[in-house]
């Protein structure tokens, strides 16, 4: 299990161009598999264009208390990129005026940003319909100063979305680090204790499942049933929905695929599972992603590949929703991850 980010290890894949070179080369360059662009052109989806903006997703920084094997952000304790209060001010201005109904805060561990609480308090005042914080759970137990996070989330009616790769200890710890499972269970119990995730509760608690290896997620509904049964029976934990998210072949997951000689098979699996009806609803068509330093992207994955939006509006300080919505979405072969099977987005399946 790695304890440092690719960046801190000076791994070649920390360079975005190296990743893009791999995604554009190999089996795609040799014509064994079709480029994503050509695949979506077959059903008239190229160029991919945004629909109505629904989700405004802000990455508060790449710092995290965990170093997960599959992390597409290459997050970790050694990452110092953190959103400043000044950039947050620009974001707040946009949140007050956006047509989006969902505000989605992510990271790293967004709670580690020193201005996190201030930002949540200010953003909550904007009265956005669905206010999501993506929490890795263990942060709640990581340090005394985070122990009251369940109460804080409750106070601001935050919708908590948490990662939980499996309901067994072995699989969870292998992907996310030793001890992560026990801490996550404890954190979930604490969220339940303040009312999160209970059947009729308005305090929404959803879990995110990522496969812990080089395979695609199974049926989201069936997985949700298994997770609910196991977590209830073993730990008396309840939650609302499970989002099954496909691991995209970028950053640390790409490094893992290459190191274990699984890259080609994985790309074949993604392309074989291509589902044209998932293309209709891929998240880049209703989401804008903002990086810690205020740049705008079609999605969090493009953010990590440093592929900024193809628009004259590229930064949050110049934000203009109408101009921004009139753009072509930037795609590459990693996009097959969002169109495989039932599709994948930060809100789970899409088809």
């Amino acid at each position, binding site marked *: 299990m790695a304890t440092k980010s690719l960046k801190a290890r000076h791994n070649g894949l920390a360079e975005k161009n190296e990743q893009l070179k791999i995604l554009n080369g190999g089996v795609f360059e040799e014509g064994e598999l079709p480029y994503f662009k050509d695949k979506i052109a077959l059903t008239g989806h190229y160029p991919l264009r945004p629909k109505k903006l629904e989700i405004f997703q802000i990455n508060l920084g790449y710092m995290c208390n965990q170093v997960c094997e599959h992390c597409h952000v290459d997050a970790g304790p050694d990452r110092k990129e953190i959103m400043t209060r000044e950039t947050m001010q620009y974001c707040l201005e946009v949140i007050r005026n956006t047509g989006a109904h969902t505000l989605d805060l992510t990271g790293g561990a967004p709670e580690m940003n020193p201005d996190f609480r201030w930002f949540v308090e200010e953003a909550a005042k904007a009265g956005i319909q669905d206010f999501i914080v993506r929490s890795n759970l263990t942060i709640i137990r990581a340090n005394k100063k985070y122990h009251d996070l369940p109460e804080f989330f409750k106070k601001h009616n935050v919708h908590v979305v948490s990662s939980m790769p*499996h309901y067994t200890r072995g699989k969870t710890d292998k992907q996310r680090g030793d001890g992560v499972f026990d801490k996550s269970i404890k954190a979930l119990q604490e969220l339940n204790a303040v009312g999160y995730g209970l059947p009729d509760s308005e305090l929404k608690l959803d879990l995110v499942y990522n496969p812990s290896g080089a*395979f*695609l*997620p199974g*049926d989201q509904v*069936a*997985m949700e049933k*298994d997770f609910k049964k196991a977590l209830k029976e073993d730990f008396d934990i309840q939650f609302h929905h499970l989002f099954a998210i496909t691991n995209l072949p970028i950053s640390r997951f790409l490094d893992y695929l290459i190191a274990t000689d699984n890259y080609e098979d994985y790309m*074949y699996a993604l392309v074989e599972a291509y589902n044209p009806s998932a293309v209709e609803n891929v998240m880049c068509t209703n989401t804008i992603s903002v990086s810690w330093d205020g740049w705008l992207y079609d999605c969090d994955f493009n953010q990590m590949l440093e592929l900024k939006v193809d628009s004259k509006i590229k930064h949050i300080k110049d934000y203009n929703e109408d101009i921004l919505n009139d753009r072509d979405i930037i795609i590459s072969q990693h996009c097959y991850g969002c169109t495989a099977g039932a599709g994948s987005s930060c809100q789970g399946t899409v088809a």
Partner: protein
Amino acid sequence: MAKSYYDPADLRKFGKITEWSEELGTKFFDYYGKVFEEGALSAREKSLIALAVAHVVKCPYCIDAYTKDGLQKGITKEEMMEAVHAGAAIESGATLVHGVQMMNKYDKLSM
């Protein structure tokens, strides 16, 4: 021609059998797909049965496919290994139950 009888990359080409007999190939894959749908048995249960049978018929392609399928369905390694044992028990039982035939024959031929 490949130098070995089994090549993992051939599994990806399974669908190509339809090219040389479209009607039968299509019928087979329709049937195959239908079998593994959720029914009186869950897709999860069927995946474990398929894994056990894959071992009994010693099909390396099927073992690869249904190990991956099990992972995708969240099946644990303990469950997978128990399924393999269920297959192995039936297979060895099938051998051993013939021991009764041997005993019968032995008794019949002996004074």
